[in-house]
């Protein structure tokens, strides 16, 4: 599964993207975030406050309790501030 990070999430993790293979017990974006937080100190800092995170699965915005079943690309980022 390809992960993409944007804005301060990207800066805290230290990379804009990475490939991961979460265990089959990880079925939602929220579970993925919790699993990632354990990967490194940088990940822990990026994912410490899930309430400040938003996500997209295969480029569609989803709530954090959305399923990641079959997802090829999951993006994690702060609330958007365009326009």
């Amino acid at each position, binding site marked *: 599964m390809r992960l993409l990070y*944007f*804005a301060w999430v990207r800066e805290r993790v230290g990379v804009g993207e990475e490939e991961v293979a979460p265990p089959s017990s990880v079925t939602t974006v929220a579970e993925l975030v919790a699993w990632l937080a354990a990967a490194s100190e940088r990940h822990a800092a990026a994912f410490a406050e899930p309430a400040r995170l938003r996500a*997209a699965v295969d480029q569609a*915005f989803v709530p954090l309790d959305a399923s990641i079943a079959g997802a090829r690309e999951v993006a994690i980022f*702060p*609330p*958007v*501030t*365009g*326009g």
Partner: protein
Amino acid sequence: MIRVAVSPAVIDVAAELEVLERDGAVASFTGLVRGDDGVATLELEHYPGATEAALERLAAAASARWSLTAATIVHRVGAMAPGERIVFVGTCAPHRGAALEACAYLIDRLKTDAPFWKRETVNGASRWVEARDGDGEAAARWE
């Protein structure tokens, strides 16, 4: 006719308006970098691919809802200075009500539905701009 662009190029509003002028009523909104809080530069990050798709979906939704003749969304990315244009949205319809409402819809929804992030530099210090609560409310009024 839908036109969507995400680019570091300066936005040419005259050219964009000319593309839109296909019927009796054209409405547009231009967002500019504000310099009033001492902001020296603004940087726009986005999610390539997903951004364009989100803008296309927005423009298509507005076109269907208001029977638009044309809809344009152009968003700049990268570094820009106060006074420069960040975003342009424009609509064309046979009558003014549809054009004006659809234009307000596009800019309200773009603020919540498109993956852009702003970072400002103030007095040499850089910070990510926080989302505004009002943006969610403005977007929700179109549900």
